[in-house]
């Protein structure tokens, strides 16, 4: 695991030096603007608007980082051939892959945590106080982070066997499909015959169900999130992520470099 940590730490350093965390400036400006504007246009629902806007921004910014940097984790190393010297060291390919994965997860964790602090600051600016129920925002942020971790794993998987462009398309496609996976499972279609419907439902169980991680609505309205749901979502992300990473490692271990 020492090799995994070494690669992860370097991946994090790369993100910092390549100014990935500069997106925080954009987030800070967005939150400041929102805090000023919301105070003027909404009465009584300021905190709800700020929480919704903040969590959506955390999710969207994280999504962009997870997809675009996630796809580049391996493909950039192959294109620039920085990987050659590294794989000549006593490093297993799966160690490299896991290191890159955890490096980006570290980056996303720092980024998401900083944005969460920004969100709380905006909330405090609007309400001039923080209540106990505001702690649920942290749970929502945690679940967003879990979703991003899964997306990084998917981006890594696709970048192991296809071009960066296609890997971005596939990851984005799976994300969109995954958002509707829950709806597909409960769909009661009148016009579709039984066999395609079963197939569709089967596919929906293979897709990552990103609805598991969406508690934004509840949290924005000050409602709590059941502990069981958080535990279930964590277990789901760990198991699904492990399977995706195992697949990525299996493909990458036999991949011919250029």
């Amino acid at each position, binding site marked *: 695991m020492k090799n995994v940590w070494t690669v992860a730490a370097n991946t994090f350093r790369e993100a910092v030096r390549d100014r990935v965390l500069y997106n925080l400036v954009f987030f800070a400006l967005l939150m400041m603007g929102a805090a000023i504007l919301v105070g003027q246009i909404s009465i009584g629902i300021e905190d709800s608007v700020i929480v919704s806007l903040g969590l959506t921004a955390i999710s969207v910014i994280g999504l962009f980082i997870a997809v675009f940097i996630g796809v580049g984790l391996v493909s950039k190393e192959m294109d620039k051939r920085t990987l050659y010297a590294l794989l*000549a060291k*006593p490093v297993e390919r799966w160690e490299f892959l896991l290191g890159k994965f955890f490096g980006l997860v570290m980056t996303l964790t720092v980024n998401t945590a900083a944005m969460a602090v920004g969100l709380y600051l905006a909330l405090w600016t609007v309400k001039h106080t923080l209540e106990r129920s505001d702690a649920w925002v942290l749970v929502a942020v945690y679940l967003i982070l879990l979703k991003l971790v899964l997306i990084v794993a998917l981006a890594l998987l696709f970048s192991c066997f296809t071009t960066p462009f296609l890997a971005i398309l596939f990851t984005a496609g799976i994300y969109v499909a995954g958002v509707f996976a829950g709806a597909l499972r409960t769909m009661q279609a009148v016009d579709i015959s039984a066999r395609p419907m079963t197939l569709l439902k089967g596919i929906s169980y293979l897709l990552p169900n990103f609805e598991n991680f969406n508690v934004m609505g509840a949290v924005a309205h000050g409602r709590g999130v059941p502990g069981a749901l958080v535990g279930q979502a964590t277990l789901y992300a760990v198991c699904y992520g492990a399977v995706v990473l195992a697949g990525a490692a299996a493909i990458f271990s036999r991949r011919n470099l250029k």
Partner: protein
Amino acid sequence: MATPAIEIEHLSKEYPYGFLNLKKKKSLEDLSMRVESGEVFGFLGPNGAGKSTTIKLLMRLIFPNGGTARILGKSIDDVSMHREIGYLPEQPYFYDYLTAAEVLDYFARFHGLTAADRKARVQKMLKKVGLDTAKRIQLRKYSKGMLQRVGLAQAILHEPQVVILDEPMSGLDPLGRREVRDIILELKKDGRTVLFSTHILSDAEMLCDQVGVLVGGKLRGVGTPGEMVGIKTQGMEILFEVAEGKKLPLLAKATRTGERYRVQFPEEEVYSALDQLKAADARILSVAQIKPTLEEFFMNLVEADRAQANAVEVSGK
């Protein structure tokens, strides 16, 4: 019998190409060879001959379609054997957001060195490859030659038993090439095995105990540079200066460069030629044997290969 440093048996590699990758191009065909421990082995061949393919196969960057290879007696599938190997990729590129010292420290971590040991070795290597003064500059500002030096430093940082260098002289100025040659000779002196690919034949002649010539993915010969070109002398060459206006029959055969004349004879005629020159008060600058060079040998092989390829094309086989 001692275990060879590198042992390759029937290694072959095909690359798919064309629509749906249905066609295959042979990049390496049935390569078998060995590099003995402590030897400097030069891999020669024109571009596309299969030198880099062989090296990448040894480093498991690509996978063979057939055959096996062992380094220091261990299968190349065994990642642990990489502890004893140093590798310089062709036209190396490293993380450009790191400085030279940081990139070397990063690679050293995979060899389980302590922080103090890493620091000392990184310093030593930077000095050795002449990057001591540029160690705090990010690699994105480095020239090609400087990157080549970083590549060499990371390859020998952990004092490996076997050093594999893919075109180590590429991108270097004459001074840099000289330094790399010195490093290779130093590695040899320390008892390490060096395999390097090159198409600069003078480097191979100067450094190698053995050379292997690859052309069109096939190994065309292995031996000492002398064996490869043949040791038979083709004649003698005399370099001399003679006063203007002197009548000498051999001047008709000589080539003039500035004040100097160069003339070639069969070996048995050299003494009579020297007598003539002495009689004419010529100043003899050198008398040297004419041997075929590795370059001539190499060019003959490449031309023969091209002729064969053309013949196959014409006959439609």
